[in-house]
């Protein structure tokens, strides 16, 4: 009875997952803090000044990890939503709902940092380059998911409708990215590209990797915290909740 599968299945119940999440959350939060300190230290002090872009390029240590994470979280969200839809497990659906706001935050952060990078470099607050434009569309997809779930009162219908939307979205993301990239190359003349990043020194890659891990740990910590709140809200009639809240 102690095989991994049955242990995993036990945690699929909100009642058992709630305390587990409570124990794990601080660990990930601390990991996020430590990794960020390390990553930012490398990014702002250790990595060398870029020959072409000077000091301003350092915002790349926030921009690139934020972009990566916004994509990863969308995929994770769609995965949990699909699991919830296929196996009718409530916790999976709650996890998808919990991930969305953090993913949207990273998408927004990516756009913001991209903008801050672009202004000193190319004198414009916004450029219609392929990656920024795709990131903007990804933000719309996140907002759509959150808006749909917020608009539906019945939690079960909200979970399942959101799941369908997330799956449709994740299938469309490559198509959208491909079409935006093509659109960008067609109109190349006018635009500048933020993808022409400085050639990567080893330290720069390490810095970005650490920041990416930091964001990942932060995302997990936030998702765990949020899912605990959702569990309390949804299961508020259950006895274990009444006991836990005393």
């Amino acid at each position, binding site marked *: 009875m102690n095989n991994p599968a049955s242990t995993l299945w036990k945690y699929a119940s909100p009642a058992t997952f709630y305390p587990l999440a409570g124990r794990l959350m601080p660990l990930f939060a601390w990991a996020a803090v430590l990794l960020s300190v390390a990553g930012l230290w490398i990014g702002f002090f250790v990595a060398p000044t870029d020959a072409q872009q000077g000091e301003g390029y350092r915002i790349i240590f926030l921009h690139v990890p934020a972009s990566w994470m916004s994509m990863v979280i969308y995929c994770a969200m769609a995965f949990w939503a699909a699991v919830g839809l296929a196996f009718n497990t409530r916790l999976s659906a709650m996890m998808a709902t919990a991930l969305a706001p953090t993913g949207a935050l990273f998408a927004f952060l990516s756009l913001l940092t991209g903008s801050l990078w672009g202004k000193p470099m190319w004198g414009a607050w916004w450029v219609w380059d392929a990656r920024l434009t795709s990131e903007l569309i990804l933000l719309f997809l996140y907002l759509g998911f959150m808006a749909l779930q917020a608009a539906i*009162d*019945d*939690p*079960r219908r909200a979970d399942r409708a959101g799941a369908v939307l997330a799956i449709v979205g994740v299938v469309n993301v490559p198509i959208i990215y491909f079409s935006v990239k093509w659109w960008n190359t067609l109109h190349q003349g006018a635009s500048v590209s933020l993808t022409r990043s400085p050639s990567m020194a080893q330290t720069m890659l390490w810095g970005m990797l650490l920041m990416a891990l930091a964001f990942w740990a932060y995302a997990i910590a936030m998702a765990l915290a949020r899912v605990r709140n959702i569990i309390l809200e*949804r*299961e*508020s*009639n259950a006895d274990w909740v009444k006991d836990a809240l005393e």
Partner: protein
Amino acid sequence: MLSATHLACSRGERLLFKDLSLSLAPGAWLQVSGTNGAGKTTLLRTLVGLCAPDHGEVCWNGVPITNAAETYQHALLYLGHHAAVKDELTPLENLRLGNELDGLPLADADALAALQRLGLHGRGNLPTRWLSAGQKRRVLLARLLVRPATLWVLDEPFAALDTAAVALVGSLIAAHLAAGGMAILTSHQPVPLPGGAEVVL
């Protein structure tokens, strides 16, 4: 032969009923009763397959309805709360279309006869928009006569009908049961049918 075992359903986060089992044999009818909001409509919708239950399953002739959907739907006629008629179409067109969507033929003569039987004389060619709520209900009930089915699931079939119409619908159901059909219904009014089991929620 309809059977449901250990059904449990919830609406939102509220559990409506659990561990509910029932079965229905040819010639029998069942009334689902309970207070408003007890879950009567949800039970009916779960039995016809519109909602999936939290637990348990519904079987038609021993096969779960999720596996034998087409067979079950062929034998089933569900009349819910809504009028389920299109205002823009005449009652005649509504009946014909209803059958067409179910893949069944319907001769105009049969449709007109059904409408007449339900008390809608000479209104066959007026858009349903011009009919009263009670008359629209009769158009819906006319489907009982034109859409062949073994199991009738009727949610408040006597609502908005006068005494004569209530007796008429009662006799239609009785005739259906006598011919080997089955019926499940909810009603706030007394049901003019003999015998019958009851499920109270």
